[in-house]
């Protein structure tokens, strides 16, 4: 089965670059993301995370 599939996957010129591209995009993306997240200002994070809670209209229900 693999032989059967390989023969036309291989026939695309430069197919081997695809896994390398995907791996690099993936790694770079996550490193940048992690750096961004860990450098976030703590106070700002606290402020944003309480956003759903702070604009409650008078609550008449208690459930």
């Amino acid at each position, binding site marked *: *089965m*693999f032989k*059967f*599939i*390989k*023969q*036309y*996957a291989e*026939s*695309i010129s430069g*197919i081997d670059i*695809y*896994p390398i*591209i*995907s791996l690099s*995009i*993936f790694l770079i*993306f*996550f490193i940048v*993301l*992690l750096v*961004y*997240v*860990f450098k*976030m200002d703590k106070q*700002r*994070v*606290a*402020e*944003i*995370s*309480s*956003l*759903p*809670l702070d*604009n409650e*209209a008078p*609550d*008449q*229900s*208690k*459930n």
Partner: protein
Amino acid sequence: MQIEKFQYDNQIVKNFIYATIIWGVVGMLAGLWVSLQLVFPSLNITQYGSFGRLRPLHTNAVIFAFVGNGIFMGVYYSLQRLCKARMYSDVLSKIHFWGWQLIIVAAAISLPMGMTSGKEYAELEWPIDIAIALIWVVFGWNMFATILKRREKHLYVAIWFYIATFITVAVLHIVNSFELPISIFKSYSWYAGVQDALVQWWYGHNAVAFFLTTPYLGLMYYYMPKAANRPVFSYKLSIIHFWALIFLYIWAGPHHLLYTALPNWVQSIGIVFSFMLIFPSWGGMINGLLTLRGAWDRVRDDVILKFFVVAVTCYGMATFEGPMLSLKNVNAVAHFTDWIVAHVHVGALGWNGMLTFGIIYWLIPRIFRTELYSKRMASQHFWLGTLGIIFYAIPMYWAGFMQSSMWKQFTDAGQLKYSFLETTINMRPFYAMRSVGGLLFIIGVILMVYNIYKTVKAGKLLANEDAEAPALEKNYVKHAGEHWHRAIERRPVKLMIFSLIVILIGGAIEMIPTFMIKSNIPTISSVKPYTPLELEGRDLYVREGCYTCHSQMIRPFRSETERYGEYSKAGEFVYDHPFQWGSKRTGPDLAREGTGNLKKTNGWHFRHFREPSSISPGSVMPAYPFLLEQQLDVSTLSNKIRAMQTLGVPYPPGYENEALGDLNKQANEIVQSLKSDSIQVAPNKEVIALIAYIQRLGKDISASKTINTNK
């Protein structure tokens, strides 16, 4: 700083809540009904009520009507509060609401009529597809305009999930719906065979990801903190959750096609990314559950939190199971069995269902300014729902394992131990138990309907809720600081563009090479276009939803090649618009039904369509007596041939004028052979075309074993 007064629109929230409840009941009842049809095939009443047509109705109703309205109800309430602004336009809100309901009604009518494009979870025909795209844009427009006029500087993470949902669903829907109309209610998929399969499951998987998951995660990040009255456990984790999830999800589609004729490297990419998905998914689940840290005692008394805890737990179970099912060795066992049905229902009933119910119980008393009519009843709903999930899932898991083991069992002499029919008959008790689980779940929902009805009666809708907030420090008149504010204002747009780029990367890397293959695909010289009669028969196969129970994809396992013949090759499907590989084997695979030791006489098929159980005692296949009565509609035949030519199927030029003659000739041949089997039937009946198609299946390959590769 100037304090601005404005009002939140609760009317639209109420409308979407009602729609969620009504369509939820409809979709779940449809599910219960089709589950009973698998136990009692006599419940397939008339052609409009046969399993193959109702099962798409069930899936579409639950996904797009129940969960769809659930998304909108949750988004319209939370978005206004998170942006400290009323929805941008009440008119757009209304168009969105009524447009979406009309689409659902159109689906509920057209699917039982047999109007289907034959692609799972994207069955709706092209006019409805266009309507969906338009209404979806209205939703996005309204949402973005609201975000742009917000009074809160920061975009809370829930809004990120909403934005990603909007943009990705738009891309998925448009790309997967490329189809060539041949009449007002019939079209052919633009793609064929392997490519159609890849696009379809790129769509199909991401419909799960971006319709059933990301918007609901957005809701979780809003309503969980609300109900627990404390901020989310880790906001930083939620950011990682968001980007990791949307980045990884888009690549995972090929795990639906493991061991198929899809190129192996695409399968491998799908596996790797599916497996990695466990990390963001569990990050999100943990984030949700740990939001309750220090408040777990409240879960005992607060029924809403109970619903949320079960929902998030089911999310965790389903997203653990998903990556496991993507591993080839697990997939080899689970694919095509009821295990997958169990898996999706843990997600649909548990994650989507329970979260929706929790949100409804939370919202209704708030917008109706009253208390919930009965907490006890809500608690009973919770237990019925939870038990329903368990009673549904466990028999299905059991059935899945059993089915798979029986399919793969060989005798000592090296022959298959069980016929397919024997495996089907063994499934029936489990199907019955599953229906009981579904029934429990629905009884819970009906309790909710009553509870909500009484609550609404006791309260009064606060249609426009007063609110006030300082204006965002922007003033279009003032020039000071304008540049900086503009940058912030643009952020949601940037966010959308980033999300778009992120999802396009995955889609592009997966698809471009597969489309490049088109010129390199190993053409099998013996694979020929369908004859006109076979083509018409194939359209009937699509119309009747045969793909909901029959696959046309033989995987390269001995247990399958022994049972069904030579494994399926990519080159065999080049003229299949749409592909019909299927995803479930309630019945046997049909890829080589017209060849080898699977080949049956025309008379066998005729009698089998009329009454399957008379030929195969114990079969749960619906009877199709109407195919023997109805005349084949050949009025669009020349359009169909022309459409196929446009799509690259090599019918000779001008063939559309000769097609009808060939069709009649082949039909008469079949009628003659039926006559020798003492069956009298007119050549213009639908069943003749379907027999022609079934008899064609797999023939190309057996005609010639030589495979020419264009190198």
